[in-house]
């Protein structure tokens, strides 16, 4: 037994806590589920309406502002999925031992936002039924083709990062009496006959590390290529060299915010404070703070460069953003997305889980707003002459985007009805490494962490 008291890995309690969302669904859960289901259903109906009845004429799009909320949502939601890449991959590769309690939530939120976000490249098409053409007659020079390739590859990697650690977790829970039959059968399948042998552990670790290493450049590529749909055009406001890194930083920033919010909500709802402790939340908050500062720096750099030289188009756009037409939205973004979160986290008094949750929520809303500010204002500026364009999202667009947001939460709620919310095995592994690192020379006997694992696969 470890000489040090490791309350986090008291296995029975840990497993019980991890299974709380699976076994315990109170009235509040079902009310929330039903409400979100209604919103998501409304979104689905709205999309059906777009498909069948009016085509894209049901949106607020026009020949001048031909991209709007759908494209902003696409970028935003895929950006929200970057929290998974950060926590599961980067924190893993850097051996940040505090990541344990939140990896599962990070991975699930990443998958949920990615699955829903990846619908929007299809939703915004005039002929979605022709998507197969991208596979059969692609133009390799087009950023949109590479968008698709990158997103699909990234989706596979995210899925792997979620499923692989589930193998030992479900193995430990195979015979859990509190679980229903469906769950136990599911766990049997998922656990692949895991028995915790060194060989298996070695295989799993290698696979996890490989995918973690792969997913970092993949994540960079995905949002960079997404930015290319804007920056590889000649439009003022889009044709900027900073867009690649700008989008990636923004994505990780908003992704961490999603992880923080999800972690705090689940922590509160299922009383997981013992594992998702204040220290974990604060560490995540500091990561978000650093990214917020980086994003603010990039924004400042972008606007200063545009404004200083005085090219007419860029100056008009800058005025529109800072002082005129889009100023309310822009300053709302600055306040909610940069100033408030940084202040909330930097000031020790507000650096509480509540304050951090508020900061994360503000970041999420503000970053969605920012993506709208990237897509729409440059399009309102006419390319040759004529009047400035205008755009207002239509009820169908609002319904679809709200439905998508509800869908993300629904997917998370749904998944956590089946899989444990804490990465039991991974947390144990981390503790074991920490304990083992404190020893000298003597072979460390790994504490028995898996009672109930049978040998008959």
């Amino acid at each position: 037994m470890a000489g040090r008291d490791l309350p986090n890995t008291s296995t029975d309690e840990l497993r019980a806590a991890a299974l709380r969302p699976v076994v315990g669904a109170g009235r509040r859960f079902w009310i929330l589920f039903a409400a979100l289901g209604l919103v998501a259903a409304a979104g689905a109906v709205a999309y059906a309406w777009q498909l069948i009845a009016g085509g894209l004429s049901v949106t607020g799009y026009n020949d001048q502002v031909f991209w709007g909320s759908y494209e902003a949502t696409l970028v935003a939601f895929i950006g929200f999925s970057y929290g998974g890449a950060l926590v599961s991959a980067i924190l893993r590769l850097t051996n940040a031992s505090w990541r344990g309690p939140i990896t599962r939530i990070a991975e699930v939120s990443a998958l949920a936002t990615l699955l829903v976000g990846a619908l929007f490249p299809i939703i915004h098409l005039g002929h979605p039924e022709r998507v197969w053409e991208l596979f059969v007659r692609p133009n390799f020079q087009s950023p949109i083709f590479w968008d698709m390739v990158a997103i699909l590859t990234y989706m596979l990697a995210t899925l792997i990062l979620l499923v692989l650690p589930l193998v030992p977790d479900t193995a430990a829970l195979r015979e859990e009496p509190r679980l229903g039959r469906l769950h136990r059968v599911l766990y049997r399948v998922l656990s692949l006959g895991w028995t915790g042998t060194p060989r298996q552990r070695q295989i799993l670790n290698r696979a996890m590390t490989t995918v973690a290493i792969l997913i970092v450049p993949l994540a960079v590529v995905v949002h960079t290529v997404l930015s290319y749909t804007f920056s590889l055009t000649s439009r003022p406001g889009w044709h900027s060299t900073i867009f690649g890194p700008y989008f990636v930083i923004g994505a990780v920033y908003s992704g961490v915010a999603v992880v923080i919010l999800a972690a705090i909500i689940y922590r509160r709802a299922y009383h997981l404070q013992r594992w998702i402790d204040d220290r974990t939340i604060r560490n995540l908050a500091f990561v978000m703070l650093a990214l917020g500062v980086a994003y603010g720096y990039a924004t400042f750099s972008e606007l200063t460069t545009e404004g200083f030289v005085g090219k007419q188009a860029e100056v008009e756009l800058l005025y529109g953003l800072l002082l005129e037409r889009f100023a309310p939205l822009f300053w709302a973004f600055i306040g909610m997305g940069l100033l408030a979160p940084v202040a909330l986290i930097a000031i020790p008094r507000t650096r509480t889980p509540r304050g951090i949750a508020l900061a994360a929520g503000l970041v999420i809303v503000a970053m969605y707003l920012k993506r709208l500010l990237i897509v729409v204002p440059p399009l309102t500026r006419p390319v040759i002459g004529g009047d400035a364009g205008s755009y207002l999202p239509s009820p169908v667009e609002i319904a679809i985007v709200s439905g998508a947001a509800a869908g993300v939460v629904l997917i998370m709620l749904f998944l956590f009805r089946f899989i444990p919310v804490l990465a039991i095995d991974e947390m144990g592994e981390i503790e074991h490494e920490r304990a083992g690192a404190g020893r000298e020379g003597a072979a460390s006997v790994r504490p028995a962490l898996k009672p109930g694992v049978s040998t008959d696969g």
Partner: protein
Amino acid sequence: MADHRKLAVTFASACLSIWLALPAGVGASHHGQGVADEVALRLSYQQAPVAGAHAQVVAQAAIDSGAPAIGLEVEFLRQVDFLGPRLISLGSATTDASGAARITLDTTQGKLRVIARVAGNDLYLPAEVAQEIDLQAVPDVGSPGGPATPDGQPNLAIVATVMPPLLALTAFLIWLLLLGLIAVTVLAIRRGRTHAT
């Protein structure tokens, strides 16, 4: 005869001769009074003697007696077939003392159909002639350098042709890697459950 009678005859003869001569004199300046001459036009051309110089087209105007028609304005046109038969103005020139009108062509090689036209006036009837001209390019001896390189695009074109397949190959390999990793891991975990090490 009496003196007064000699005077009258002299006077009458003078009037008569003036009356007869005047129309003839006037008629002489009209040269056939009311009938304009026909003009025969002939086109010929001279190739450009050296590289860089231009070909010349000459329209020779003569009347049917062979005398040159001087001071005629000759309009030169080129006939092309572009969305129907069309005429392009090449310019105009006036015939000199030898009856020749010259223009210089901008085209240095190729086949052209040239038309020379003379508008009619009191002296000459309108006339027109057409001629196929085949200009040979003069070989350029001792020109500096080879053919001009197009504005630096080829290098970029090579990148644009090579990169996408490379990227596609990379994506394909990543997929192979990920799928293979899943397969290997799943199989190995299943197999590894009976082995200790």
